[in-house]
């Protein structure tokens, strides 16, 4: 797809908002950029009030950099820490009432398809574990069962960090928190399993201590959601406040948790593999040559 339409019509530059001009002239709008280039271009995400050293902030930052076409992307969020940063980005952000985000995204995706036809407009939901696995659980699962074509990203900090440390469905069993002094009584919810059962075409778990991997899974999820079906990414984004992780040890914690219980996993349907290989040149999903298969 050509990105020429992002360029300004000569003479009209001055009428565009400065934030938009910055994104076109110094940012990623209309260009292909990667995480390895950060620091050399103006990022979409701007200043935000999230806590110092927050892993969720890092993940959001990397995710926004990884959007394949940020100029054609709309984010949807809900109450929780994440929206404090997601809303401070130079892409449209829709705030769904608590738990509504996947319902809002469903309508938005359908409306954009009616309005823009085959011009892809990516809708990306980013919400916390509470908004997605507890309060928004029904709407999240229903959007997957309905095969709504957008990406759902869970910012899984395993706690209601914004309201003082209550347990969520994604908190680990026996975990003691400020507002769960006796420890959680049941297991962490298997949202990955439910995403697969509900028919998501691409499901991945990721931890932000590997920026290029974050970039890779976000790109795949957004691209697959354009044509194939719903996609789900579950990201471990620790809450250093509620879990008392010193800010300079946040990445050390991420590394430990990734090794211990949040290993990278990726599930992709054959249809999605074929789509990524044929349309976007993903070589790892190209059919293996017959000779190589026979040699095994």
């Amino acid at each position, binding site marked *: 797809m050509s990105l020429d339409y992002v360029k300004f019509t000569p003479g009209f530059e001055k009428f565009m908002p400065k934030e938009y001009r910055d994104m076109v002239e110094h940012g990623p709008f209309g260009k292909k950029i990667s995480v390895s280039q950060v*620091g*050399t271009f103006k990022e979409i995400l701007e200043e935000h009030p999230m806590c110092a050293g927050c892993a969720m902030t890092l993940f959001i930052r990397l995710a926004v950099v990884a959007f394949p076409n940020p100029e054609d992307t709309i984010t949807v969020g809900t109450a929780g820490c994440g929206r404090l940063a997601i809303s401070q980005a130079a892409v449209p952000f829709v705030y769904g009432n608590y738990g509504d985000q996947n319902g809002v995204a469903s309508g938005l995706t359908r409306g954009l398809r009616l309005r823009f036809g085959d011009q892809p407009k990516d809708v990306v939901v980013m919400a916390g574990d509470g908004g997605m696995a507890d309060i928004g659980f029904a709407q999240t699962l229903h959007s997957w069962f309905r095969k709504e074509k957008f990406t759902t990203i869970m910012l899984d900090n395993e706690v209601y960090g914004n309201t003082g440390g209550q347990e969520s469905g994604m908190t680990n069993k026996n975990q003691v928190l400020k507002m769960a002094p006796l420890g959680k009584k049941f297991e962490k919810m298997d949202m990955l399993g439910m995403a697969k059962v509900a028919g998501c075409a691409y499901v991945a778990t990721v931890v932000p201590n590997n920026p290029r991997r974050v970039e890779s899974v976000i790109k795949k999820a957004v691209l697959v959601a354009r044509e194939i079906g719903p996609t789900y990414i579950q990201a471990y984004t620790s809450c250093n406040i509620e879990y008392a992780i010193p800010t300079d040890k*946040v990445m050390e914690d991420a590394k430990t948790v990734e090794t211990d219980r949040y290993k990278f996993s990726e599930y992709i349907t054959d249809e999605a593999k074929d789509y990524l290989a044929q349309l976007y040149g993903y070589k790892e999903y190209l059919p293996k040559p017959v000779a190589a298969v026979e040699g095994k």
Partner: protein
Amino acid sequence: MYLVANIDTGICAATSCKLCTQYCPEANTILYDNEAGQEKGLKYGSAYVAVDRCKGCAQCVWVCDNMAKHNAIKMEMIDQIGDTALTENVTYGEKTSHATLANPVRG
């Protein structure tokens, strides 16, 4: 006064890892100047910190010390680091950014 990250250009420009730019939780804060090492005869550019955006978490210090093993970043009091980068003095060029240095306390 408060702590902010300060990157040793001499150490940074001898490598080209850029890890700190990817691990900072704040956007547009640890930036990269492709020409920063040239005046010192070093091989690569260097990362630098727009200190008005730095929240002092020191994640970059852990990444530089433990992942990159370059030990190029230290946390320093903002009134002790002298001239440094501020967001309003950052300009973006072709595949690089550059900051005109200024004193963050005196302006």
